[in-house]
């Protein structure tokens, strides 16, 4: 829940809004996020868009493992079976494609299971031990963050954290930087960040620099989230790949949510859910004061 509340959907909140304390008005429904989560049943295991993941290419996942084959295959069959019942579509091709995808997803699941088993064995870890998170989802993570075990959070971030501020990332097809370098006539998109190429043709990088050096971006909710972690004494460090100066500056200057907009416990109040997450706000600061 913490993360739902802090990583909010929608446009970046600019500093002017923050100063006026009006950003709550524009807050999109956090409840929507939960609805999306449960209703769509979004399942990353399902390779719905024909991901070109090929486990057989380059890596032989099965060579290193002597796991329990039967169990894994059963799971795979089950998985494939589930998908078959879905529709009464006459389109054979479509069904075949779905079968393929289901198969691939199952294969990937197998790979994952085997790799995990290998990990357990090699590290001498008991797979039956109790996990630190109560559930493997955002709720579980948020609960863990409120608990006493979570003192040092490390954040690793990439260009994706600034996309909603209008700064392109590198690899998103279409909008990413690497897809928009045609005008520089490079041998490969990455050449623009290669030292040898720079020595030879500094022009391209300098022109890109002029573009990458813009001003006046507003921090995104993600920047605020990271700063908020720090304000709560939870952040150990933020490792960032972000290079554009403004991205980093955003992070440095991104102040936490204004106090007027918090729920009385320090967490930003969401306009839509109406419920102050009292358990969240109290857990760290207040419980510490009590002890």
């Amino acid at each position: 829940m913490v993360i739902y509340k802090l990583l909010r959907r929608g446009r970046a909140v600019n500093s002017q809004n923050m100063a006026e304390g009006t950003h709550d008005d524009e807050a999109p429904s956090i409840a929507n996020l939960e609805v999306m989560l449960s209703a769509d049943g979004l399942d990353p295991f399902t390779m719905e868009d024909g991901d070109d993941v090929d486990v057989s290419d380059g890596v032989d996942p099965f060579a290193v493992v002597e796991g329990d084959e039967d169990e894994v295959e059963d799971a795979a069959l089950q998985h494939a079976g589930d998908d078959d019942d879905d529709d009464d579509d006459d389109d054979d091709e479509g069904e075949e494609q779905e079968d393929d995808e289901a198969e691939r997803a199952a294969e990937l699941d197998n790979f994952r299971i085997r790799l995990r088993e290998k990990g357990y064995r090699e590290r001498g870890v008991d797979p039956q031990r109790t996990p630190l998170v109560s559930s493997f989802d955002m709720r579980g993570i948020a609960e863990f963050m409120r608990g006493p075990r979570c003192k040092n959070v490390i954040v690793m971030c990439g260009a994706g954290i600034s996309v909603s501020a209008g700064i392109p990332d590198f690899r998103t097809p279409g909008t990413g930087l690497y897809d928009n370098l045609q005008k520089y006539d490079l041998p490969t998109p990455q050449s623009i960040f290669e030292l040898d190429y720079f020595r030879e043709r500094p022009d391209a990088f300098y022109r890109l620099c002029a573009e990458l050096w813009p001003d006046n971006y507003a921090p995104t909710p993600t920047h605020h989230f990271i700063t908020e972690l720090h304000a709560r004494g939870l952040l150990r460090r933020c490792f960032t790949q972000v290079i554009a100066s403004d991205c980093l500056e955003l992070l440095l200057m991104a102040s936490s949510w204004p106090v007027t907009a918090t729920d009385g416990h320090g967490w930003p109040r969401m306009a839509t859910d109406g419920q102050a997450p009292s358990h969240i706000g109290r857990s760290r600061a207040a419980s510490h004061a009590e002890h």
Partner: protein
Amino acid sequence: MAKLHLTSDARVRRLTQNIDSLENLAGLPAHMTVAAHGNFDRCSCIATGAAVPVEEVRAAIAHGKHGPEGWLAMAERHGGLVKPDIVFFGEQLPERFFQLAESDFRQCDLLIILGTSLKVQPFASLIGLVDDDVPRLLINREKVDELARMATDTHRWPLVAMDCVYCDGLHVIACDYM
């Protein structure tokens, strides 16, 4: 309250500002971040390594190639091409990255990975440095390439994608413990 002061100045800062009703809280101090791939805040000459003021570089780049204020003239002044200290392919990452990765990840209780497809090493391999039990949450708009994920992770166990949700244009794809 006295005890609070001893425990964490960040927490105290937050509390006192709550009390004072300040409009804005402190931003993230520079020491809390590690710019693994450098940034545009500093510039240096690639031949001599000497630092060059950012303003000068920025002005020269804005001016273009030629002329006394252009970047060609700047290169002549400094004995070589000047570029911002962002890490190019093939260049070494800052020393600070390796030092802090070593000490920080050993102490990590929760790893949150935001907006990265984990394609660039050695940054991506950091995710394998945390202890076995540490929960790792990955939030990214797109699925992170399975192989890239596993390649960084074979000595541990893989990140397990748990759920998907859109927030702030980011996509939650994986939230693991396994």
